[in-house]
């Protein structure tokens, strides 16, 4: 595949402006990172529906609950570390009340490479997918980001959107992103299924090409909707392919791999499963690509895991 690369994060503010122009219920909340998350574009266009909280993430999350309680649709846009971990009980309360609180979590996984392990959100999927009522979506390109935001607006209740800061392939797939549905990006055969989450798309594409070149015929699956998950598709894969490898810009504990394992483990028979992601360690500073390569998110690792499940 030929493609250029783009950061999903760059379009967040722009897309929120597009929807915010027609839907006056949309508010955007920021905690002093509007430039980094690009929500500043919304601030400049709709200052009266933009709420700056200062560096006060827990309060920001509860303010979102208050705004939602008044019939509005607040998008709290901030780093994944802060909207998942820092404000977890506040998010959980919003979900308990099934409020229309929408999160856009930027800088997920190791996307904030140079800032180091303190800022690497390798646990956010695990933290948010266990909260009842909360939907979890991970776009892999700009089109899917736009669709994820649209789904968030149209879905009653809280939604968490994990949006890559690092670059992803700038492609437009034909298939539309839907709540509860995964996207079959390519299907060549039943040797393997490589299931990835959107912020690991760059490695997923390269690894899939490398596997094709080696003669393996498999499927490339973009999970998109981590919650609710496309359980039928996963069950179907479990009985049709020889091996499944999950790929995530996240810890291998409790994230995408864990979610898939929870489904497979309930079957009497299923394809062999292997995980690619960050092992149970803290990472370190470095260029995002370098950190990812060192901590498991690299093409060689994916290829060898696929070969392992096929052996």
């Amino acid at each position: 595949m030929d493609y250029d690369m783009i950061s999903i994060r760059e379009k967040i503010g722009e897309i929120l402006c597009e929807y915010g122009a027609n839907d006056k219920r949309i508010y955007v909340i920021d905690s002093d990172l509007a430039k980094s998350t690009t929500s500043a574009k919304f601030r400049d266009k709709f200052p009266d529906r933009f709420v700056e909280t200062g560096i006060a993430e827990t309060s920001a999350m509860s303010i979102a609950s208050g705004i939602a309680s008044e019939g509005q649709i607040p998008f709290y846009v901030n780093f994944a570390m802060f909207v998942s971990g820092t404000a977890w009980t506040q998010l959980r309360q919003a979900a308990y009340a099934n409020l229309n609180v929408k999160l856009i979590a930027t800088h997920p996984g190791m996307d904030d490479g140079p800032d180091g392990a303190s800022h690497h959100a390798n646990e956010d999927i695990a933290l948010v997918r266990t909260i009842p009522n909360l939907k979890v979506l991970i776009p892999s390109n700009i089109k899917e980001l736009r669709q994820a935001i649209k789904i968030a607006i149209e879905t009653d209740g809280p939604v968490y959107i994990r949006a890559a800061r690092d670059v992803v392939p700038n492609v437009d797939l034909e298939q539309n992103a839907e709540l509860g549905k995964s996207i079959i990006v390519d299907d060549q055969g039943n040797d393997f299924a490589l299931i990835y989450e959107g912020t690991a798309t760059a490695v997923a594409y390269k690894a899939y090409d490398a596997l094709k070149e080696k003669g393996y015929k498999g499927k490339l699956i973009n999970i998109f909707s981590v919650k609710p998950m496309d359980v039928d598709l996963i069950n179907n894969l479990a009985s049709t392919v020889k091996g499944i490898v999950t790929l995530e810009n996240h810890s291998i504990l409790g994230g995408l791999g864990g979610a898939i394992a929870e489904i497979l483990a309930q079957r009497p028979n299923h394809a062999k499963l292997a995980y690619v992601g960050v092992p149970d360690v803290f990472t370190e500073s470095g260029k995002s690509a370098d950190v990812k390569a060192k901590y498991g998110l690299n093409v060689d690792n994916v290829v060898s895991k696929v070969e392992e499940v096929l052996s």
Partner: protein
Amino acid sequence: MDIKHLELLANENRKRIVQMIYKAKAGHPGGSLSVIDILTAIYEMDVDFSSEKRSKVVLSKGHAVPAQYAVLASKGIISEEELGTFRQVNSRLQGHPHALDIKEVDATTGLLGQGLSIAVGMALVKKHEHENNHVYAILGDGEMQEGQIWESLLQASHYKLNNLIVILDYNKLSSSGPVNEVINLEPIVDKFKAFSFHTIHIDGNDMQQVVNALNEAYTIIDRPIAIIADTIKGKGVSFMENNPKWHSGALLDEEYETAMRDLERAKEEIQ
């Protein structure tokens, strides 16, 4: 406002609180009884459930939810019978406020420190929509020790939320004893002043003072309001007053009877 009428309503609500907790064999009587005069007054004076755009009440000290259920029962929203299901399985009356179950409960709270931020969010929207009503955040003194409270005080003051009325139920006791021995809040009025709040310091169990404070709050146009209400934990039940033991707990049969006798006597005194 007819003060005597409000006092009688508050007295009935106190009885409901004691009955609810007695029946549930669990709950937080002390903080429910200290705040009930304030809650009764707010709902009578400023909450019109028939209006879509109405004033909202965030009970940030969510463990005092028996007080909220009692007021909602006095308004006919919860039946007296349903009050008997408090804290039981299959009841709408959860141990802490849950807005999904009862739409007249304006905010889901219970994790201390979060309610004031929720109120700030509501007040921001109401101000933006030019609504002519208020958002009340009812805080416990113990939860003033939560960091999030101070984040939201900064934000309320930054946005000059003149439609936000913060009420501190200052009964001076938290779970393990005198709140100011756990972590000192004083000088608390000065702290609100330093955050640019209009402050009103009252006896929160004196209905006339509560009504006067709310009426004063409605006249403030340039900043948020904080009513620091000195109250008595367990107010109205002789053996509970100022006794930290009654932060949370069940009543024995004879304790229940004494409590109801105390409240009946108080009713006669009001009349």
